[in-house]
């Protein structure tokens, strides 16, 4: 009767030690970064109006359930077509922009990643007077 119990204890002990070692080795938590990069970059000051807006996130996205909004300095929404995935990159949303006047613009992004999590954020860029 003792043998199975002893074997189970051995297995448990091995598991605990191995698990403890690996968990300690996992190191500190890293902060998450939903928005990886964008074009135009956050807070960029541009000499000319960009032709398109690209937002790269850290996870593959569901493009049909993700949205990009652009607002001018007065907070007015600028009409944009639905965003699409960049070719060969499931983490990057692209949308063509209409001609933009100089001024400050705010981008609002709301995305759904393939693991169904939804995140949102905003950043701004400025187009300089020529």
């Amino acid at each position, binding site marked *: 009767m003792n043998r199975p119990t002893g074997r189970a204890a051995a297995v448990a002990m091995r598991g605990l030690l191995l698990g403890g*070692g690996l968990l300690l080795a996992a*190191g500190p938590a890293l*902060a998450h970064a939903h928005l990886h990069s964008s074009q135009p970059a956050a807070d960029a000051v541009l000499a000319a109006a960009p032709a398109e807006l690209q937002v790269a996130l850290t996870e593959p996205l569901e493009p049909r359930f993700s949205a990009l909004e652009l607002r001018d300095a007065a907070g007015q929404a600028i009409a944009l077509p639905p965003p699409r995935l960049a070719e060969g990159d499931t983490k990057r949303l692209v949308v063509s922009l209409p001609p933009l006047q100089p001024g400050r613009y705010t981008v609002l992004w709301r995305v759904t990643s393939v693991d169904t999590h939804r995140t949102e954020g905003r950043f701004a860029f400025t187009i300089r007077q020529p």
Partner: protein
Amino acid sequence: MVWDLLLVPARVLHLGASVSLAGALVFHAAVATLPSRRWLNGCLLVALAAGLLRLLLLAVAFTGADGPGAALVAVPDVALGSRIGQALLVQSALLLGATALAGWLSILAALLALLAQLAPLLASHAAAMQDGVLLVALALHVLAGSIWLGGLLPLWQAVGALDLAQARYVLLRFSSLALAMVVVLAATALLQAVVMSGGLPGLLGTTHGLLMLGKAMLMLALLGLAALNRVVFLPRLPAHRTALRRSILAEAGLGALVLALAGWLASVPPGLHEVPVWPLPWRLLGWGWVAPPGWALALLAVPLLAARPRYLALPLATCVLLALGGAAWGVRLDWVPATPTSFQTSPQPFTTTAILRGEALAKTSPGLRALLHPTPAPTTEGDLFWHASLAAPALDDAQRWDIAQFLYARQAGLALREEGAWPAPMPAPDLALVCHHGGDTRLSALRGQVLRLAIGFAPTVPGTLSVSLDPGSPNADCTARDPAARHAYALLAGLGAEPRLDGLWLLVDGQGWLRGSGFRTMPDILEEAALAIGATPLGPARAHH
């Protein structure tokens, strides 16, 4: 959102029903009799209904539909146009096929049911993280859990219905199968914890981590019951048949709780991606030192423990190994006071303007000015945010992070001046630049090359890009737009109070980490330092939550 709250119970119900169905079909194929048709059909109906409910709730979540009618209209779009929708459709089809084949082609039915468990993994955290190893581990975990936990109720039913010899045979066969599944579950759970928990702060300080711990505790209780069945009740059959069946039922109950936590766990972001709230009033100084000896211990443990383990000696040997590892890396074991935000970092980029904004704010109240006095205990950026929050509760989060970033930079600079090194890896604060060849850019956009930041005198150093902190300087590749950036970098160099900064330089590596600082150093020494940091990268660039 009420609808959002329903997503977790719907997922748990869906998981429980599909696991029960798969477990029952595997039990039939690998162990004994087919559970009743009513049980199989019941599991299938619940799984299909729960799958449909999930689609409806996801439609509300994805599209923001404001009523059941609008949600119903959006269901086809979600079912066909999202990865989770497609996965749920495939899973439902596989479960239907498996149930139809049950009792006729039992092995094929079991395989289809197991395959159905894998379909939703295409929309899992592991799939989103695009980590192939993690995805394989998760797949094995789900399969092993389905076979073990899903087989418990059929086992309970079989032990009650079969004669003694058959019952004993079934118990021994299921026990062997379950033992193999437990090994797979433990190994794959461990891998997931290592990759997704975000270390101890994530494990103790996030919902995901606490759920993982809760699930591990329940699994230990399950193992206890399984051992009780095998070691105590099984040898005493038939006298203990009733007790054994009660114990298996209790095991199934615990298994249902494990599945509930698993469904919840799959619905929350991994600890790695969350902001941890540290629950303890103290922390061990510098978790980083644990990593190398931790891995060494883990690697050593495998061959060591495969041999004859000496239980009492092993914990002792572990402590000795850890102590030796710590000593080898020259680190002391210090417990220091901690705050709930100890392991948090600013959600906003670390910039010279944030540091300067923080400096201005830190002078606005006596409570904040008191934070300028260095504390004996080491503090993190997150600790400084907590102290700033207590000192100035009226400020908003962004302002308090500005203060924390200023204090952190100043504290690092003071440590550099007194001890000759920054106490922790310091990212170079970002700033706006004008480059001769690239026009307007930012320091962070120059990653990948070694940068030499300088004030005043800027010698040419091969292999580096020169960045002058003096706007308009003609002798550098890039220059700062804002003259105030000089003061932010002076703080980081421990020279915040110095009136004359001409001759200050700082080196930044390709990942954006500050790697050295000096004052009026000879160009050949600078070149040597630049070469050295190019050859010894510090690690990936700092991320923000």
